[in-house]
């Protein structure tokens, strides 16, 4: 029991709720799947219900939906131009999904789906895949100009192309690891400090007094984690916009 309480890794365990073995794969509906569904339901319900009155003068909730809409729309327009607005639903969905998933993860006993590398990597590959497919579809081989910036001396071209290719290939990794590692590390740290409070409190009056420090730390970290939850969703959306800009205007 005590082990469960203090084990900071326990929260990341995936438990199947409904077993669905298909072929050699385990496609079970797990707690992770449950929270994906929860994320989608919460985000959709909020966006849908808050805007259902279509008020000319927005209510508070409608204001939040409108602000997120304009926030992402401006972000995309600033970095990718008006041509980038065709990707607005994608960027907005990614932002809302990551944001709500991160925020839901802040509830005690809730599962944080973005703390699993496979989820963030899949989202990152969705972005990079969109960039590559749209880039080649729109510009054909001209998309490869992305790797050859303008105005560099001919002798440097191979080196620069190599660097550009490496930087392009590392994008999905950095995009996914950034989100994953932030959520994972944050939740582990939070759990460790909360665990200190629990284990110190079992040690009598001195321990209870001593547990104030990690408790204060845990409270501060909770605040920080809310910031990180928003910030990482924002960073994910901003980088998505910048990568999409490369697909739309590959010529730098």
């Amino acid at each position, binding site marked *: 029991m005590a*082990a469960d309480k*203090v084990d900071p890794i326990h929260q*990341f365990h995936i438990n199947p709720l409904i077993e669905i073995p298909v072929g050699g794969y385990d496609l079970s509906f797990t707690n*992770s799947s449950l929270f994906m569904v929860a994320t989608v339901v919460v985000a959709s319900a909020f966006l849908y219900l808050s*805007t259902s009155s279509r008020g000319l003068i927005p209510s508070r909730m409608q204001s939040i939906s409108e602000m997120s809409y304009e926030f992402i729309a401006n972000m995309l327009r600033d970095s990718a131009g008006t041509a980038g607005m065709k990707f607005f639903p994608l960027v907005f969905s990614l932002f809302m999904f990551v944001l709500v998933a991160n925020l839901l993860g802040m509830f005690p006993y809730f599962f944080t789906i973005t*703390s699993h590398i*496979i989820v963030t990597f899949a*989202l990152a590959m969705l972005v990079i895949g969109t960039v590559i497919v749209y880039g080649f579809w729109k510009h054909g081989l001209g998309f490869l100009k992305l790797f050859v910036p303008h105005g560099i001396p001919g002798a440097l071209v191979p080196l620069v192309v190599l660097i550009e290719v490496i930087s392009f290939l590392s994008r999905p990794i950095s995009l996914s690891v950034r989100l994953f590692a932030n959520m994972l590390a944050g939740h*582990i740290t939070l759990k460790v400090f909360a665990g200190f409070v629990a284990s110190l409190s079992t*040690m009598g009056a001195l321990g209870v007094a001593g547990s104030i420090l990690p408790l204060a730390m845990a409270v501060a970290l909770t605040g920080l984690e809310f910031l990180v939850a928003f910030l990482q969703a924002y960073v994910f959306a901003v980088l998505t916009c910048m990568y999409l800009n490369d697909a739309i205007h590959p010529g730098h």
Partner: protein
Amino acid sequence: MFVTPGYAQETAPASGDAHGGTTPVAAETGAHTEAAGDAHGKAGFPPFEPTYFPSQLLWLAITFGLFYLFLKKVVLPRIGNILEVRRDRIAHDLDTAARLKEDADAAIAAYEQELADARAKSNRIAQDARDAAKAEADAERKVVETSLNARLVDAEARIATVRASAMKDVGAIAEETATAILQSLVGSADKSAVAAAVKDQRS
């Protein structure tokens, strides 16, 4: 690789507690470390555990796909519509305000024009009245002056007549007086000599 620091972080404070704490706690933390170690050995670090990768990918694709479609088809057009309606409404209201302001400006201009006209008209009326009064006064003065002049001329003529008749009488009176003086002084008077003397004196 990620497992090791996480566990180091977790176990280090636990063993520190064990050293400083009482025996039951030490036993408990020891047991805990063991249990964690067991879990580690059994399942590995969950985020890197590939058992549920297919499940996570499948459910992510399903949920995110539905979320994307829902937002694209329902929510985003709706919010976009709300914002557009509001923008149109604001633009329309601003247009109306601008039009009303133009109307007000026109009304003010018309009012000022009318005021200026009225002022000019009143000035003209006053000027006319002044001119008419002046002309009348002039005419009256002229009449009075003419009549005065006529009377002056009359008076001068009468004075001249009176003077002339008076001057005509002066000779006779002087002769009479001189004759009377001479008679009372000398006793006799030569009328013709007196007349000659008077005439002599007068000329």
